[in-house]
């Protein structure tokens, strides 16, 4: 046995001789960073938050595979100014027919993506503290301002789909408002806040963004308007106030925004949707999400095989108004499909384009509406200014006729820019499709949607409720 022991000793030490060094186990990634180490990393992380808006769930429409395009094309596809065509592969069919159930993957994408962006903003807000003094102080404040505005904007967009109503003081369920990034506790399960609480937090973030802009200076190197500056924050505040029916705030914020970026003429409107001017857009454009050679926010609504076309009714309105609206860079009429059907197509976003999140046209229309609703007689002045600048005949409407004219102009001016369904949700909650069913040369088959439909509020995604039971489901799902 002694001999055996000796052999084992030899075996043991013999093998140790050949053992490799355990330092070899410390490998590091070559294509990923594991923490934000420098201020330039933090700045890159800010752009990373912006990058989230280029997702197919947000403003992009990357292919014909039916990613949500939640805040670019979808609100138009679901509205009543577009009709699904026969060439459509049906990728948004369930959405535009408004027949989604709680497990719909498009709805899920719309719920998830804003929080993805919010988590990126929160992450950099958590690491910016140490740069808010010294050499980097002013720059850090500008970064912080943008991150806060991004956080507010993404929360608001999410709330627009998942809250049942938009009253400023509503106690209806809004969405969770997330202000921390907790990579070590991914299973933090926030509950939904009320709509009122959402508004409070959104406004608080936007106001904090303005304070930081005031202290650090406005966003620099923003010729292409791809970044949020103080004007954009005013525009966001204006839109949020508009949804909350805070008319005086709408007038204040739109006036501030229009003060730095006024409404342009016909050429400015047409240029706003041209690729040639994207590096230095007209004053009409406040904030544009750059295409990076891949974003095609209007893919569903134009090209030779558009999935959605403009309705006959709105076509007639556009044709009667004329001006900048009938220019081939904006609307194209009688586009013959391969099936031989002539249709009207919205041509603002053919091919690769940057998406215009805020424009002067929306501002002046919101101001006109707010003025009209608060009895300010200059509402007509705003409307006529827009009409003049678009080459459309002015009018002399008053009272409800003026309100109708403003709302109609909103449909024409902002067609294809992601507003219509929310406008319906904010107002009548009713859709009657005149071109419906196979005979009407459309794929649409759900011809009437009334205000009682559960679909006016998106379901909280089934999967998210399973993971986070603190999320309450919306009515009807």
């Amino acid at each position, binding site marked *: 046995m002694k001999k*055996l022991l000796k*052999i084992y000793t*030899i075996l043991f030490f*013999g093998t140790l001789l*050949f053992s*490799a060094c355990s330092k*070899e*186990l*410390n*490998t590091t990634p*070559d*294509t*990923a960073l*594991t*923490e*934000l180490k420098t201020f330039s990393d933090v700045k890159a*992380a800010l*752009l*990373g938050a912006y990058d*989230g808006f280029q997702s197919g769930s947000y403003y992009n429409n990357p*292919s*014909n595979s039916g990613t949500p395009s939640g805040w670019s094309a979808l609100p138009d596809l679901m509205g009543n100014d577009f009709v699904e065509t*026969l*060439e459509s*592969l*049906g990728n948004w069919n369930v959405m535009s*027919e408004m027949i989604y*159930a*709680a497990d719909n*993957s498009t709805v899920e994408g719309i719920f998830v993506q804003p929080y*993805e962006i*919010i*988590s*990126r903003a929160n*992450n950099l807000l958590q690491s910016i503290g140490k740069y808010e003094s010294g050499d980097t102080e002013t720059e850090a404040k500008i970064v912080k301002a943008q991150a806060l505005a991004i956080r507010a904007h993404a929360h608001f967009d999410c709330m627009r789909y998942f809250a049942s109503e938009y009253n400023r003081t509503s106690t209806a369920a809004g969405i969770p408002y*997330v202000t921390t*990034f907790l*990579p*070590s506790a*991914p*299973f*933090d*399960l926030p509950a939904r806040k009320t709509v009122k609480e959402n508004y409070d937090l959104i406004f608080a973030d936007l106001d904090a963004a303005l304070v930081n802009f005031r202290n650090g200076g406005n966003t620099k190197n923003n010729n*292409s308007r791809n970044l949020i500056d103080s004007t954009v924050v005013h525009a966001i505040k204006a839109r949020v106030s508009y949804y909350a029916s805070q008319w005086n705030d709408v007038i204040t914020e739109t006036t501030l925004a229009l003060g730095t970026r006024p409404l342009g003429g016909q050429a400015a409107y047409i240029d706003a949707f041209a690729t040639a001017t994207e590096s230095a857009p007209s004053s009409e454009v406040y904030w544009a999400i*750059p295409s*990076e*050679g891949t974003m095609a926010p209007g*893919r569903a609504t134009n090209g*030779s*095989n558009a999935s959605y076309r403009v309705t006959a009714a709105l076509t007639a309105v556009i044709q009667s108004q004329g001006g900048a609206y009938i220019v081939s860079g904006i609307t194209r009429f009688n586009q013959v499909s391969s*099936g031989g059907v002539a249709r009207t197509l919205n041509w603002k976003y053919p*091919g*690769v384009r940057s998406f215009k999140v805020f424009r002067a046209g929306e501002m002046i229309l919101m101001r006109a509406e707010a003025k009209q609703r608060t009895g300010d007689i200059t509402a007509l002045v705003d409307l006529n200014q827009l009409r003049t600048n678009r080459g459309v005949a002015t009018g002399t409407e008053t009272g409800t006729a003026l309100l109708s004219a403003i709302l109609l102009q909103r449909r024409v001016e902002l067609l294809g820019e992601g507003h219509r369904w929310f406008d319906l949700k904010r107002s009548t909650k009713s859709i009657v499709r005149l071109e419906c069913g*196979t005979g009407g040369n459309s794929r649409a*088959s759900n011809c009437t949607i009334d205000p009682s439909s559960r679909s006016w509020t998106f379901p909280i*995604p089934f999967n998210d409720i*399973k*993971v*986070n039971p603190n999320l309450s489901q919306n009515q009807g*799902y």
Partner: protein
Amino acid sequence: MKQITLIFLVLLGNTLIVFSQSTVRGKVTDSRDGMPLQGITVKAKGEKGAAFTAKDGTFELEVIKAKSIDASSVGFISQTVPIGDGNVVIKLEVDNQGLSEVVVTGYSTKSRRGNAGSVSTVSIDDIRTQPIASFDQLLQGQAPGINVKTGSGQPGRSADIVIRGKGSVNGSNSPLFIVDGVEVRGGDFSTMNQGDFESVTILKDAASTAIYGSRAGGGVIVVTTKKGKAGVTKYSYDMQIGQSRLPENKLKVMNTQEKLDFEMNIAGNPWGWSPAEVAERRAINENWNDVVFRKGNMQSHQLSASGGNDKTTFYTSLGFFNEEGVLIETGLKRYTGRLNLTHTEKRVKIGVNLSGGWSTFRGTGEGNQSVGAPLNTVLWALPYEKAFNDDGSYGTSLQFPFWINPVEELKENGDKNWQLKGTGNVYLEYNLPFVKNLKYKINAGGDYSQFENFGITNVGTQGAEQSGDLTAEFLREGSLSRSLDRRFRYTITNSLTHTAFLGKSENHSLTSSLYTEFVKNQGRSFNYTGYGLLLPFRNEAGLVSGTADNGYIPVVGGGFPENSTLLSYFGNVDYAFKKRYFLSMTGRSDGSSRLSPKNKWTQYGSVGAAWIISDENFYNLTAVNFLKLKASYGSVGNQTGIGEFPYLQQYGRGTFAGQGTLQVNRLGNPDLTWEKRSTTNIGLEFELLKSRIRGSVEVYNSLTKGLFFSPRLPATAGGNNNFLSNAGNMENRGIELSLNVKIINAPSFKWTIDANYAYNKNKIKSLPDNQTLQLYKSFQALQVGKPFNSFYLVQFAGVNPQLGNSQYFKADGKTITDEYDANDLVVLGTSDAPHNGGLTNTFNFKGFELSTFFVFSTGNYVYNNARYNVEFYQYTTSGFSRNALNAWTTPGQITDFPDINEATQGSTTRFLEKGDFWRLRNIMLSYSLPRNVLAKLKIQNMRLFIQGQNLYTNFKFQGWDPEVSSVSDADVNSSASVSGAQYPALKSVNMGLNLTF
């Protein structure tokens, strides 16, 4: 080589001449037919002298003092014969058991008799002639407990292999492949030549796999390649040629008459055609399968030579394999070469095994729903439209504009791949001089694979036009992409092994080994896509340089797909007493770079025991001539399939407004640790009626703890939902049976049956945070008590005869509702088949051999997404399922196809189908020339064969084949759905020749 042998013999003669010696003459023959045997080694017992038999079986051997001589050769049972009067006649008997008597574990070789673990040996000789490029496909049905999904008929396609059930949720479930002691990437067998393989061993339980530690979670497949044998050099030529054809698709689409009737009468004439327009289309009836598919020819050739002398042996081969796919333009061409050498000199044995392969693939996209995939567009094509216009140009479709003509896409565009594969190892064994039976071995090996992909979209093709339409105008001008991915892994293993025989009559034997091993994986990849393919070259020379104006700015990417290391220390002790009681113990310590620093190291171990009951004195059951009981318990781990840095929070790159961005694309987990699988195995091996019946029964129970699991995170967490944790347990329990029966064993006629069957029951035992249900994939969920990969759908309850709408069961399974509600989702059957088996019948009659090989698999479900796409209510203007001819149209109509105007709901059991099948995987008739003819022809062996592959498959699944697999699905662990674009399994007939001289 012959000359060298001669010189060698002369030299040998010279050295021996100083002793007094005598010459022994003799002849070696085959005991079966008395024919002379060439190349048999004859040695004087206890002396150095050796000789080989000549062609006529005779030999001359110089002997000094020996009283007897040994005759041996692989394939025959060695014999020792007394010299007697100096003229010796030796009749050698064929060794039928051959290799199956040893178990090759990769690190060592053990006797099958004393092995306590669960291993299956695949007799590769029987299957390597199956006309399939990728060796892993051949393993289907060959052994119990190994579940092989062949996936598709795409030439070169590798199989999905699962051993004893899936044990990981997000980690890898693939087995580890070891070739000559060196790990080889599983997906690369299409560039390796199975003709060079000698043995294939499948290690299943912990006692067998624990020595592989953290790489063995999915079991181990150990391959050894052919080695040369001392003796006369043998030359072999193996060839076969054949043809494969398209099977029948059970997913039927409408022909012209049906489609037009359907559009007019059921779908409401969507295009508003006049009767004249309809009549015009009725005149066209294009059979798209005829233009997109073809008969594919295949041929393979292999030349090999092996031989050597007492000190040096060699095996070398050259192979060529060429297979045309049944889809036009697709195919695989492969060139391989191998050289295996061993040399022994006193205490040292050195060896080298080198192989290289080069293959060219032309493939096509599978397993997707892309409108660009020809395997989809052939299904979605309209029968009343032509593939070619009258002027010979490619037809376009008016009715379905996103559709791309599959013929054009295959002929004009598409991609091409090249793979370069080199594997090899060198080893040195040294018997240490100062201690008896102590051996040192170093084995160093590498596995290099390089994969190049080239894709092209030419100007003017429908593919380019569509990209221009859908994305950016400049894409109309064509594009070209190329990528290169190279990976290298090296493994260095050092070992010391000591064997001791102890006790009075050396009743105790003890083999102890200690090992250290270091494995490093490195990989590098890059890719680019260039635009503006306007010059008349179909390569990079065709690209116009990019400017901001023309937009032809190339997109460049790349990365480091592999960057990890594994360092291990392990040991193994095998103890045997009286060759009747066996005990085996293994311990291993692994350090992996993939896990968080505090959990980098872990320990595994196993213990196994075997008892040959039939050797006991008290044993008197004569009918059962061999009986062995074995049991083992142990654990292995997993650290593969989870990426290289799963524990780190990671920021990835992006671009915004022309500037670089950083964003969190993975949440770190500093607690990430090993996934461990422990297995208990009990088995019984038996032989009845003088070994006429041999078989085994094994039961096992394995539990994986700390599953690698990417839980679905709350949306509010961020991080792209990329988070890996260890959570939950999963159990696999099963039984495996194998049986070999020599039903008739007469000298002139033999009938043998080989059968195997395995049942594996997978069960989720627990989920994180005491949850009972976790969502998983689009159509699946994980529920405690249910198997992994169980479907999660709303149950379809047929069509309401009055209204034509779909009806569903509520979650209770009884109440019927008209409304689809996500709250009615229920957990259903699994996509992993629990029952699998194989059955081979072999008949031998005078040199003729007929074998039939059946495989079967039952108990799984497949979500038929391909059918969904041709039954979706909005796609009536493209190719459509014939099932829709029964679509509901009138009240009172009883049908299972709802009103075509109803929005089709995907997450229902309407599209869930059973995946059961049994198929005649292979039938082969061969004829080996009798020895007397061979002797006249002066060749050693000649065999002719004809075989049929997949000639019959019995299944109900509506598709090309029920064996669908996760080709490009994001997660390889789920093979739940046929997404579409299924490459049909091939039905082929081949004939061939094996010649040795």
